[in-house]
């Protein structure tokens, strides 16, 4: 039996996608012109699906910091954080993040994916139970699997459902970890944190919030949903990524627990991989300082998000959630029409993400936009105009409820 024979279904699905005129999951950015422009298929294209929320990827000071680190520390660390891969830069970045997050401890990871793998598997073990939101990101699911913990899934954003599942659970002497996300990556909605905190007071679990899409974005200090909600003291652990608002690659976990630093010796995705390259760490240090010093980026992003949200609403598009968010997902009727509309948008000059099941909740097909502080009003109006021409005039208007 050929091991790869099981991929036949994927081959057929990918062939059907390409037969519709393009490869929506194989787009290549031939050249990057700015945080919001690239050359794709030879054409200058507005980027509206990059999670580049702060638009910081071409910042001159971040680039200079990266170049300096590249020259001074070399191209790569060639080692793990617990061997030869901890440079002064890595420690400096951890301190910068701890300060920004107002947490006593911060551990950085080589990717955001590994941050979730590491934190889930470091915090919970086979005797513990993790309660995770049904719409959690794959990195949370994979981290939960790696932990060996008992896994209980609760209905998306439904604190009463979590309460019910906690009540149903037998007391087994193990720890309980509840995992939420600040902003959910596909639909753009936020966790109702205050409701979950009420359940926490009743049942007494430890709470982790993944602020991947909300870090730098929400809250008076840009620390995420818990900052916005004024509930940071109720959140035991924070996870996030450098690949969105920070414009680099890497991830972090943070908390105040006195044993937090010991997680460094209990997280395989932290221990058994090389640490981030010096250039990436240095641009992250420069970026986090900018996020702290330039709150106008957050305000600009909020304004831009509201502009795209209300523009799409006015077109009558069905969106992923009812509040303005830097993730604006447009619901489409089915896979072929979503692929066709994605192709038409790209040819007309705008790149968005295509999101298909099982990567989406409730089998939804989505054209997912992410807004950047670097988008101009003209960019956003052009995106709205193109969605008007391609999606609102096409098939995207009437969608059965998921």
């Amino acid at each position, binding site marked *: 039996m050929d091991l790869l024979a099981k991929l036949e279904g994927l081959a057929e699905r990918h062939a059907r996608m390409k037969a519709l005129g393009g490869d929506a999951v194989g787009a290549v950015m031939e050249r990057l012109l700015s945080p919001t422009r690239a050359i794709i298929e030879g054409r200058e294209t507005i980027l509206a699906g990059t999670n580049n929320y702060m638009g910081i990827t071409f910042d001159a000071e971040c680039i200079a910091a990266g170049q300096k680190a590249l020259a001074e520390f070399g191209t790569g660390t060639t080692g793990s954080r617990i061997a030869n891969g901890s440079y002064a830069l890595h420690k400096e970045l951890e301190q910068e993040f701890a300060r920004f997050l107002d947490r006593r401890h911060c551990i950085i990871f080589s990717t955001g994916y590994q941050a979730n793998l590491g934190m889930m598997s470091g915090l919970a073990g086979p005797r513990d*139970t993790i309660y995770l939101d*049904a719409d959690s990101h794959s990195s949370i699911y994979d981290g*939960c699997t790696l932990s060996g913990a*008992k*896994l*209980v*899934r609760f*209905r998306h954003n439904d604190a009463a459902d979590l309460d019910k*599942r906690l009540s*149903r*659970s*037998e007391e087994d002497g193990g720890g309980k970890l509840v995992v939420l996300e600040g902003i959910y990556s596909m639909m753009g909605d936020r966790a109702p944190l205050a409701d979950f905190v009420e359940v926490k007071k009743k049942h007494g679990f430890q709470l982790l919030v993944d602020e991947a899409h909300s870090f730098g974005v929400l809250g008076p200090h840009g620390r995420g949903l818990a900052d916005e909600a004024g509930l940071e003291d109720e959140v035991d652990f924070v996870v996030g990524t450098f690949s969105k608002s920070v414009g680099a690659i890497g991830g972090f976990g943070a908390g105040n627990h006195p044993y937090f630093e010991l997680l460094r010796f209990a997280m395989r995705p932290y221990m058994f991989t090389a640490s981030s390259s010096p250039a990436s760490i240095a641009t992250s240090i420069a970026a986090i300082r900018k996020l702290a010093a330039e709150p106008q980026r957050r305000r600009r992003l909020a304004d831009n998000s509201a502009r795209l949200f209300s523009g799409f609403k006015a077109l009558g598009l069905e969106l992923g959630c009812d509040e303005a968010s830097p993730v604006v997902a447009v619901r489409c009727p089915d896979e072929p029409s979503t692929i066709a509309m994605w192709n038409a948008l790209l040819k007309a000059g705008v790149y968005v993400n295509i999101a298909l*099941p*099982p990567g989406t*909740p*409730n*089998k939804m097909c989505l054209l997912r936009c992410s807004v950047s502080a670097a988008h101009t009003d003209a960019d956003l109006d052009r995106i709205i105009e193109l969605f008007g021409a391609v999606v609102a005039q096409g098939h995207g208007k009437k969608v059965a409820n998921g």
Partner: protein
Amino acid sequence: MTDTVTQLCTLLQPFNTNGTVLSAATDISTDLNIDSVTVMDFVMEVEDHFDIEIPLNVLSETRTVADLAAVVEARTRKG
């Protein structure tokens, strides 16, 4: 069919989009051609219907309706 299997088949019907005839031997994922997320959504309905907890860890060894019925019956007795 046992009572549990009958109830599971009823709960499974909304996920049965390709008209498979459901029985104890039905392989939930492959016969119904549904993805892993949909299987988890179905199991959530089963948990609520029987008021039991079925951790996701159990699912890797649960393929057919009969397998799931055994899990449900073991967990219903416990409660």
